């Protein structure tokens, strides 16, 4: 259970990091908190030739208030969000999601950006950012671009990140004080990856009745208008009715919707 040999670089500025990634191509992996990549390296499921540690890049550590959103740098830890050490523009939704991720020892090092870029469909931020219609900010050799969170994850551990690109941060919209939200996930044991996630964000000021079915076998399923919700029908978009997976996803949506009404 030891990682295969790899090289390690910790650049101090984004340009140098992009250069390292471009030169190494597919043989390089970006390392942030390492709470998902670390296990994969130890299990030798990942055997990159080079790790580029991005925790020294100032842009990825930034958190800043923008007009309609808060930009949260990729290297912001789950624990920093859980503790309210960074502003939460979502009336408490981000803090609730953060507290439920894995275990505190993992949350102290694991990062928002790392979790999104790793793109395990069961990861909490994948679903949470999709239902919030957050924007993923990406920097690459061609400059900066943004991707809607719902379009960022393409499948299991597959994202819209191109070769040589780095996830810089995520723009989380500010919700109004009238906003309501719910987040319900099913795990076999506290802290394990979810088997099903249901989440809703309602913000009348934005005209939002958004929902998401997460922890699927691919991208999260976004529900654009949750006012008329048929959980079994949504679950049927990803799973055959009658199966365990269909049932548990339909129940997650039902319970998340019920939590919204309380």
């Amino acid at each position, binding site marked *: *259970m*030891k*990682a*295969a*040999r*790899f*090289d*390690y670089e*910790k650049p101090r500025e984004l340009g140098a990091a992009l250069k390292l990634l471009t030169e190494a191509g597919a043989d390089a992996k970006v*390392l942030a908190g*390492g*709470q998902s990549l*670390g*296990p994969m*390296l*130890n*299990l030798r499921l990942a055997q990159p030739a080079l*790790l580029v*540690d991005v*925790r020294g890049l100032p842009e990825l550590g930034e958190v800043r208030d923008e007009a309609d959103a808060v930009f949260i740098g990729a290297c912001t830890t789950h*624990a920093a969000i859980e503790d309210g050490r960074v502003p939460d523009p979502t009336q408490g939704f981000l803090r609730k999601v953060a507290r439920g991720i*894995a*275990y*505190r*020892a*993992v949350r*102290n*090092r694991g990062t928002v950006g790392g979790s999104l870029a790793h793109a395990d469909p069961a990861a909490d931020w994948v679903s949470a950012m999709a239902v919030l219609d957050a924007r993923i900010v990406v920097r690459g050799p061609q400059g900066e671009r943004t991707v809607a969170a719902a379009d960022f994850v393409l499948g299991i551990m597959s994202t819209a990140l191109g070769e040589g690109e780095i996830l810089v941060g995520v723009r989380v919209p500010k919700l109004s004080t009238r906003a309501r939200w719910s987040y319900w996930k099913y795990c076999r*044991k*506290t*802290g394990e990856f979810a088997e099903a996630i249901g989440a809703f964000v309602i913000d009348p000021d934005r005209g939002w009745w958004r929902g998401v079915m997460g922890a699927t076998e691919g991208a999260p399923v976004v529900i654009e208008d949750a006012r008329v919700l048929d959980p079994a029908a949504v679950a049927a978009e990803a799973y055959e009715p009658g199966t365990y997976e269909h049932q548990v996803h339909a129940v997650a949506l039902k319970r998340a919707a019920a939590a919204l009404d309380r």
Partner: protein
Amino acid sequence: MKTITLKVNGQSVSAQVEPRTHLADFLRDYLMLTGTNLGCEHGVCGACTLWIDGAPARSCITFAVACDGADVRTIEGFEDDAVMAALRDAFTAEHALQCGYCTPGMLATARDIVLRLPDADEARVREELAGNLCRCTGYVGIVRAVMRVLAERRGAASP
């Protein structure tokens, strides 16, 4: 090989490490600090939990090379720590260990619970301990030990 300089239990340490060497192997094999135990080596069991920069972390999925400049505190570094002393006494009194393999990690997590969540109830303590697996005492004693220290500290804090 990469050169790293970090603080371990208050002492400055410099060493040449292979990037693939994780922090727990570095502590055990280079510094002979064998109090940090390795269980699953993929971040699930919690046996290797120690403190990095003032917060608990998994040393099996943190590479030593990524700890350049960090302040690491292992179970050996808590000898004179008042909270850890109270936890050690409570673990003894409540029979919170049997084989002792998970204990260094349990204590690292327990110290975080006591300091960060002084008002935690039993349900919260159990939730917070979910990332540390014990295969012999069955958690009852461990939870009781943490609850005992929380109660002691609440008692000491009130007039």
